[in-house]
């Protein structure tokens, strides 16, 4: 069976600025995969490319074996890729319920939609009382939870999340990750961009480390050590992590 998502040696530039050069990764059904790396490494670019906002100059993206490279974002969404970009992007003028239901406009399975709606409210109970509040009135943490809930409503085959912990307090971050685990238990597949290698080690099944537009290291989070990760992340031997892993 082909992986849910397969990114095959893609190259992407912003105008003439190369952002990623030759990134390959796969995500299998029911996995949480983390993509970590410093700023500017190309993590967001990778997700944006999968979601169709950027078009690679080379390489291919496949969803369950079918190429989706260069498709329009809305069509990729309709094929089952749900994307939560960095910075949340709540529609501030729409109510919470409208935000949540926006992702269902393309679906025709009425009963399943209502079931999903209830499921989202069960994950994020605070949303129930706020259904008619404008999205802009929620706090940052609430907005982060809202967009994750919203992303679930498209009946996705895979959910891409870009830096869910950015700008959030540790308690909220823990809650967000707890939801990710519940989602995985329910059979969902996730690809999460994260800056903290430690959080990735705690939560992901597998990890890819991205630096300067290339995959520097990948492996199961059971097998990787902090030292290996630090080396791949910074690109030099940190004296703190002396005795780190081999040069990739």
């Amino acid at each position, binding site marked *: 069976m082909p992986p849910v998502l397969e990114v095959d040696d893609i190259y992407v530039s912003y105008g003439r600025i190369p952002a990623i050069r030759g990134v390959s990764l796969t995500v299998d059904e029911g996995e949480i995969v983390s993509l970590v790396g*410093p*700023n500017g490494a190309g993590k967001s670019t990778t997700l944006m490319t999968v979601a169709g906002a950027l078009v690679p100059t080379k390489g291919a993206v496949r969803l369950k074996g079918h190429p989706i490279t260069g498709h329009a974002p809305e069509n990729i969404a309709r094929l089952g890729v749900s994307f939560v970009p960095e910075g949340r992007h709540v529609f501030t003028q729409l109510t919470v319920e409208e935000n949540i239901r926006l992702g269902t406009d393309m679906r025709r399975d009425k009963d399943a939609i209502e079931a999903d709606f209830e499921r989202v409210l069960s994950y994020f109970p605070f949303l129930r009382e706020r259904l008619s509040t404008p999205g802009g009135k929620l706090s940052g943490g609430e907005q982060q939870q809202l967009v994750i809930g919203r992303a679930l409503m498209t009946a996705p085959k895979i959910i891409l999340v870009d830096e869910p912990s950015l700008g959030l307090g540790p308690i909220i971050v823990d809650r967000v990750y707890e939801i990710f685990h519940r989602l995985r238990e329910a059979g969902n597949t996730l690809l999460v961009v994260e*800056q903290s290698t*430690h959080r990735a080690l705690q939560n992901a099944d597998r990890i890819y480390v991205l630096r*300067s537009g290339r995959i520097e290291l990948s492996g199961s989070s059971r097998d990787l050590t902090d030292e290996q990760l630090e080396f791949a992340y910074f*690109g030099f031997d940190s*004296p703190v992590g002396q005795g780190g892993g081999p040069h990739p």
Partner: protein
Amino acid sequence: MSRDLRPLAVARYVWEPGTLGFGLLVLTLIVSAIGDKVIERAVIVALFNTVTVVGLYIFIGNSGVLAFGHLAFAMIGGYATAWFTMSPTKKGFALQLPTFLAETELPMLPAAIISALLAAIVTFIVGIPLMRLGGIAASIGTFAVLMIFYTLYSNWDSWTFGASTLVGIPIYVNLWVALAWAAIALLAATVYQKSRFGLALRATRENEVAAKAVGINVPLQRLIAFVLSGFFVGLGGVLQAHYLGSIVVKAFWLGPTFIALAMLIIGGQRSLTGAVIGVVLVSAVQEVLRQIESIIGLFGLSQLVIALIMLVILIVRPNGIAMGREIPFPSFGSLRRVAAPRGALEPAAAEHAIVPAGGNLDERLEAFDVTVRFGGLAAVDRVTLSVGRREIVGLIGPNGAGKTTIVNVITGFQKPTQGKVVIGGVDVTNLPPHAIGRKGLARTFQAVRLYPDMPVRENLEVAAVGVGLSRVAAGQRAASILDWMEFSHKADARANTLPYGDERRVGIGRALAMAPRYVLLDEPAAGMSDAECDELMRLISRIPQRFGCGVLLIEHNMRVIMGVCDRIHVIDSGRTITEGTPQQIQRDPEVIRAYLGSKSGAAGARGR
């Protein structure tokens, strides 16, 4: 360079107006030889339209701001010349002017110049508020200007004869008069375009943010071009009045506005050549179609076709037929170097060339206690940092740490809620970005932001002009910095043709061309390969000593940071967490934690 190349340099300088003017001259000669009245009429109209469209080009072409209101200035010029030149009797029939005007009858040339000046004065007055607006708001503002003057002149019966046609204006514009004015307009546009003002304005068109950062006052530069453009458009109105012998407000409303803009845009609004091509082409198409119209009785056809051509151009070739290029100067083998601008021709007695910035080498760039709150949330919380003129200081921190905000505060793009920024003892906290540039702080951008359609040399010259150098001195300084960077061989390449790594280096060269005392490099290594990074590190590490210029380096590439910095300042969640030498920072567990997250929780939860 030897003295006998000077005539060639002059030839180079007047090349565009010379060739274009020669083209128009040939056209005029042919027409006067044929002697067909209809064709002659069309060519005269095209020639005075050249004056109007070149006027439009001076502003729209160089600034990139679309303006819809210029025919108001043509109207002002046209009516003014009627007031000054009509015979008192004729004026008496239609107008009730104040006595001094009613009895005045000026000669044609002074009247033309005074009328165009009047248009320029009005342009200046409306330009003061308008040029402070940017982009689409400015365009809508120019619509409002057209509406205001159109309404006023339509109802100002005693001065304009209302919306009716005012007749009896002396007729003197013929082929040769129109040609002479067209040539003058072309020459004026060239002189402006090649001056430091034209250069600075084109930089704002290419990248407004980067232009501000090199010290260019955008509203002022736009205003200069706007007024000059108002003068020539006003002159176009004067010539039209003295060709037709009559004037009517309707001739300056939206239809004619559209035709004038169509001429500029179809030809290509980014070059003088484009403006002239557009006038000639649109005039010819209009003339031919008008003949067809009157034969088959299908009115509206000519305008319809012009609109259609314009739509097609906008969709398939938005920079018009000329695509922003001028007629190329012929290259005579080894003499090709003459194609360089004036500055490079001066003997190398270049005191403006590469000099370390003046002032005291011991002063510092300091940010004291800077706090920025966005709606209660502190993005930056009491950060203090300083850079000397002989050191390289790194500023690092994970995503969302507040580096962006600090950069924006130091460069004047963001006002701090609290705290201040001081350069060499002078408080610059509340200065706009272009003024901070002039105080000795230069910067590069994460997104590079070169002026894409300008040569490398001009990219550097803009920065030198921005801090007040003449065009000649700027040329010298640009040349010597490019020489220092070992980049002279690409001085004439357009910035948008450079490979990416070179683009970054030109960005740094541009910042140095301001002769700054401090330079802020914003992620210069982003997107670079390891080999390119080595090259970059060599360049950065030579800056303080060569230029007397301190470096503040924001960068994620730790190899670069650790490789070149004397000191490193680390922030996280808006606060300073530590500061020290690269060795100290590498050993600091706080730093590793800020980037990689807390390790304590990791062991227990592993493999969950």
